């Protein structure tokens, strides 16, 4: 059965690109436009992987990750940060928040699918 990925990013074009690429690779994709929306959608249905941007209005990525980790259902779900930089500070924060890894923007669809496959197959 196809796996479901939650993609959270306030940038519509990026989000659509991510969704499109992943869907083409056979995944189901749920989209959310900011952290709060992501959290709501994550609660509605437990997904197999979460991809989230950092800078978003209403609720940012780090807060979303932490909030997800507070949910029992999301203890084991891999979460990847989509970030524009890969500084140690960012990595440290992400890790502390509970992320499993990161993916630096901009990325091309091939790289995205490669990483996703590595994580959830």
């Amino acid at each position, binding site marked *: 059965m196809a796996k479901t990925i939650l993609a959270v990013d*306030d*940038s*519509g*074009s*990026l989000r*659509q*690109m991510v969704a*499109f690429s992943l869907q*083409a*690779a056979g995944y189901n994709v749920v*989209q959310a*436009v*900011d*952290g*709060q*929306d992501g959290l709501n959608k994550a609660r509605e249905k437990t997904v197999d992987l979460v991809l989230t*941007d950092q*800078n978003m*209005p*209403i*609720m*940012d990525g*780090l*807060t979303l990750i*932490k*909030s997800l*980790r*507070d*949910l029992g259902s999301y*203890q*084991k779900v*891999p979460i990847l940060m989509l970030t*524009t*930089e*890969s*500084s*140690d*500070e*960012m*990595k*440290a*924060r992400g*890790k*502390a*928040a*509970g992320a*499993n*890894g*990161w993916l*630096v*923007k*901009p*990325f091309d*669809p*091939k*790289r995205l*699918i490669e*990483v996703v496959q*590595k*994580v959830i197959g």
Partner: protein
Amino acid sequence: MTVDMSQFYEVFFDEAEELLAEAERLLLAIDVANPDNEDLNAIFRAAHSIKGGAATFGFMDMTEITHVLENLLDRIRKHEMALTVEHVDAFLAAKDVLEMELDGHRHGADVDQAQVAAVKTRLASLTQAEAAADSAPAADTTPAVTPAAPVEASQVSAHVAPAAALPPPADGLTQFNILLPELKEKDIANLQEELGLLGEVAGSKHESGRTLLTLNTDSSESDIVSICSFILDPDDLVITQAMVDAGPAAAVAAENAAGHVAEAGDTETASSVKVHEEAGYGLFAEEGKEAVEEGYGFFAPFTPHADAPQSLKIDDNTAAISQEEIAKAVASPAENVTAGNKNSATTEKNEKRNPARQEAGHASAETTSIRVGVEKVDQLINLVGELVITQAMIEQRINALDPVHHEALINSVGQLTRNTRDLQEAVMSIRMMPMDFVFSRFPRMVRDLAGKLGKKVELVTIGASTELDKGLIERIVDPLTHLVRNSVDHGVEMPDKRKAANKPEAGKLTLSAAHKGGSIVIEVTDDGAGLNRDKLLAKAKSNGLNVSENMSDSDVYQLIFAPGFSTAEVVTDVSGRGVGMDVVKRNIAAMNGSIEIRSAQGYGTTIAISLPLTLAILDGMSVSLGSSVYVIPLNLIVETLQPRAEDMKTVTGEGRMVHVRGEYLPVIALHALFDQETEVADPTQGVLVLIEAEGKKAALFVDALVGQQQVVIKSLETNFKKIQGVSGATIMGDGSVALILDVPALIQMGQTHNYLTGATSFANKAVQTISKEYTQ
């Protein structure tokens, strides 16, 4: 598998455009001395978003500029750099360049490289200036960072002189730097006292001028926030952890939401992460150079929380983890939680703000709106229009029935009428947009134009939420722009001149929109020099226009709409487009609108545009002339009457007039204007419809009144052309076509006609008299 990225371009272009507009709006409104944090964040996010999208889709020119913008904005929003007017100007200039580059990608428009270079230089110099003061390279924004690279202390806010204020905390304590917003001295003192209950506290001055409190405590950040919440908004607080002594455990503790990593700790972190990963659960240990170049990486996989959020339980298999690390790891989630609390406080505030922003129509969130093509909306409106016509036809047939025998049917039709009206209103409102859509472009334009001309102009907008049909909004932009430019260009005087006239140096330009009856009235008012009546008359005469000294003020002012009538236009950017006052008037008229001018020399001018709320529906009165039926817009009708013979007068040179309550109104015979046959040649046998438009009154002479109804306006120009005196057509209840009269035009035509016929009859009389004399 390749994904065609170009299909996402359009979405990105729209997105970027909206973000740029929002950023500009915020920049124009921002208070440089005391900028709102949320606004700074929003502007930062805009630059950040555009950068991300531009990079993803390969628009590197935009990435370059947004990258520098983002850096500057990040530092400003973290209060590491103070916002200045130079910043705002530079950001606005950058916005222009980004828009230009966006246009280049979207429409293939030319991009002025000189402008691009200029903006880059500007932004760079701003970055340098602050960099010198800061002495910190923006290390964390470069994508490739080796783990051992030092991260400067000043990267994170509030890191100035805290070390001096307080000694480093003892073991088990954390040192927090709390940057306060602007507060009364008394409040700061109170706060310091309160915090003193948590531990050792010292106050100092931050480089931004605000107070920085440093606190050594074993309390959590959330405790600090709670205490401060009594006096201020938690969002205005900036709390960071001071740089803690290097040591692996401490370093890990320092790695949380607000902190950053010290140099020594860095290597440790890297190695500890690596260690986790190497001992991990089958996921790749991709930390280190490799991963960074590849652009992604993983931390150790998560094991389920026994009880959230207490522990970061690490599996027993990872033997390489030290006890201290576990202890600290246990400590960090707690701090994560407090950071989480702070964030949720921010969330609430954002949620409150965002609905307001969404109402302003800037929301791009897909959850609250649907993008619909304009053609679909137009089709919907057309179909509803047809429905209205059909319903009118049914109503007409119903009226012929005996109400007693067909009561049920009549009631049902009545219900149908109400339903149709409601549907119509609802559908029309889909196309209604707030005037703000038009007004929003003016702050920037006025600022730039006034600056260029060396004038000071304050722009005030009233009624920006007044709604108008989208089609009209689009068509009002150009004329309104021209009027605003005119006001700034020719209306408002230079500051010294204003001072000499005892006026405030800054001119006031007011844009207002309001609903009045069935129309919307948009006014452009300036408190400038006003129109010079004599100058206008002189110019008109020299242009060969037919004017007289006796013309009313409002007539004289209307002269500025005569073609070719500019009085020394300064060539500005827009003038080049060929938009003159005459085109403005024409455009307004084409929208079934009218334009009026009020002015007082020395005090200012008001140009008032009146437009129907929508192009599609009209409340009209139908009248008959011979075998034809015409419709007159109800809002332009003052009253209707059948005159008595004694009220009719003929004035030499002016034609027939009718006396109504002390006023004499010119009688305009429609049959004469339209050259149409009718049996009713005498006004006392017909009907006079008293009409008023653009400040002028007249009495339209027709055969009879037929009825009153709401009609769907059909354009004649779609398949035909504009006919003078006619503003459109409609389909009546019986399926026949009736023409809708253009009242302002008719009044004008009537004047000319009466003048001519009056002159003719006068001339005729003169000829008769002369010939009589001759034959005498």
